C-alpha cells in the first residue's frame, strides 16, 4: 500500500539576519531530503554554498560540483573539484527585497555505502539567473547536518525561509 510521505522536518524563518543556516541532528528515517529556501542577501555579489557532515560540518576538500546557468542572454556551465563546499546559488543573490528560491534534493542521504549526490535548482530575481547544479560529497557517512552559508559573509535577511523535508520510499 502506498504510504504518505514528504514530511516537514524543520523550518527556519529568520526574525534576524544570520550568516548561515544549519540543520543538525537530521533524522535518518527518510530516503531523500528536500531543502526549500526562499531567501535574500543585503547586496548582490555574494554566493551561497552548501556543506554537509555527520555530527559536524565537513570543511575539508571533499566536495565537487557542476552547474549550468542562464542569465537571460547567455547560458554557461562551470565546475569545481576538491572544493570545501558545493555551489548552491550563483554570485548574484540579492538585494534584500528580492527573494530568490532554491530547491535542493539530497538523494539517498542516509546510506553509509556510497558517496552522496545532490541536485538543485535556483532562480534569482534581480540577478536574472536560473541555475541547476549537481553536488558531490566524497564520503560514505550519512548526512545528518546541512549548512548554507555565503562566501563573502553576507547575512541572510529577515524573512528568509528554509524548510527541510523528508521523503520515505516504500
Amino acid at each position, binding site marked *: 500500500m502506498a504510504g504518505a510521505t514528504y514530511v516537514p522536518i524543520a523550518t527556519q524563518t529568520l526574525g534576524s539576519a544570520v550568516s548561515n543556516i544549519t540543520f543538525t541532528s537530521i533524522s535518518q528515517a527518510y530516503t531523500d531530503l528536500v531543502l526549500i529556501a526562499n531567501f535574500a542577501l543585503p547586496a548582490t555579489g555574494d554566493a551561497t554554498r552548501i556543506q554537509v557532515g555527520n555530527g559536524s560540518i565537513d570543511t575539508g576538500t571533499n566536495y565537487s560540483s557542476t552547474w549550468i546557468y542562464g542569465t537571460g542572454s547567455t547560458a554557461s556551465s562551470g565546475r569545481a*573539484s576538491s572544493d570545501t563546499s558545493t555551489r548552491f546559488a550563483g554570485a548574484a543573490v540579492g538585494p534584500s527585497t528580492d527573494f530568490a528560491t532554491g530547491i535542493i534534493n539530497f538523494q*539517498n542521504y542516509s546510506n553509509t*555505502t556510497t558517496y552522496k*549526490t545532490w541536485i538543485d535548482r535556483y532562480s534569482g530575481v534581480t540577478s536574472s539567473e536560473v541555475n541547476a547544479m549537481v553536488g558531490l560529497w566524497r564520503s560514505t557517512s550519512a548526512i545528518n547536518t546541512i549548512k548554507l552559508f555565503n562566501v563573502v559573509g553576507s547575512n541572510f535577511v529577515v524573512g528568509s525561509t528554509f524548510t527541510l523535508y523528508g521523503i520515505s520510499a516504500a
Partner: protein
Amino acid sequence: MSSSIGIYASQISGHLVTNNYSSIQTVTVGSGGASSITFSSIPSTYTHLQVRYFAQTNRSLVVDDAFITINGDTTGGNYYSHQLQGSGSSASAFSSAGNGGGGVGIFWPYAFSATASGSYNYWAGGVIDVLDYANTNKNKTLRSLSGSDANGAAPSGYPAFVTLSSAAWFNTSAITSITFKSNGNFSQYSTFALYGVK
C-alpha cells in the same frame, strides 16, 4: 551574536503528513545488478507521478545514458525529448527523436556515473516528474533534473553532467508501467522510487 542556528529535528513535534504525496513502489538493486528497472501496475488514483533515483551503472570508465519505456511501447517514433546540459565547461542543448536507445522504446539521458570495476563510488541523482499520467485524452509529458559529478575523475570528455530534460510520449493511454534501462546494468544499491502526487 551567534551566526548559526541549529535545528534539532528530534525536538520538532507535530509533523504534518498529508496524503498528497505518497510512496507507491521502490526498487533497490541487489548484489547481482539489474539490467532494467520496472514499475508496473501503477495505480491511476494520482494526478502526477514523481520518480526519484540514485543510480550507477556497472560499465567501466564511461558515462551511460538511461532510457525510459512507457507501457512497454518500443515504437521509437512515439518518444521525443529535449535536453539542456552543462558539462562543467560548456552549456549545450539537443534533442532526441525516435528510437535512439539500442532497441528499447526510448527517451533518454540521465547522465549516470559509471563504475570502474567497482572502484568508483560516484552516483547520479535525479528527479523525474510525469504529469497527468492517467489522463486518456492527452499525450504525456515528462520533465527531469538530473546530474552526476565525479570530482573530475570521470573519463576524459565526460567530467560531469547536470541536465534539465523534457520529453513527450505520443500516446493518450494512461501510464501503467515505466521501465528504466541503460547501456550497462544498474549497480547494486541503485534505487528508483516512485511516488504519486494528488
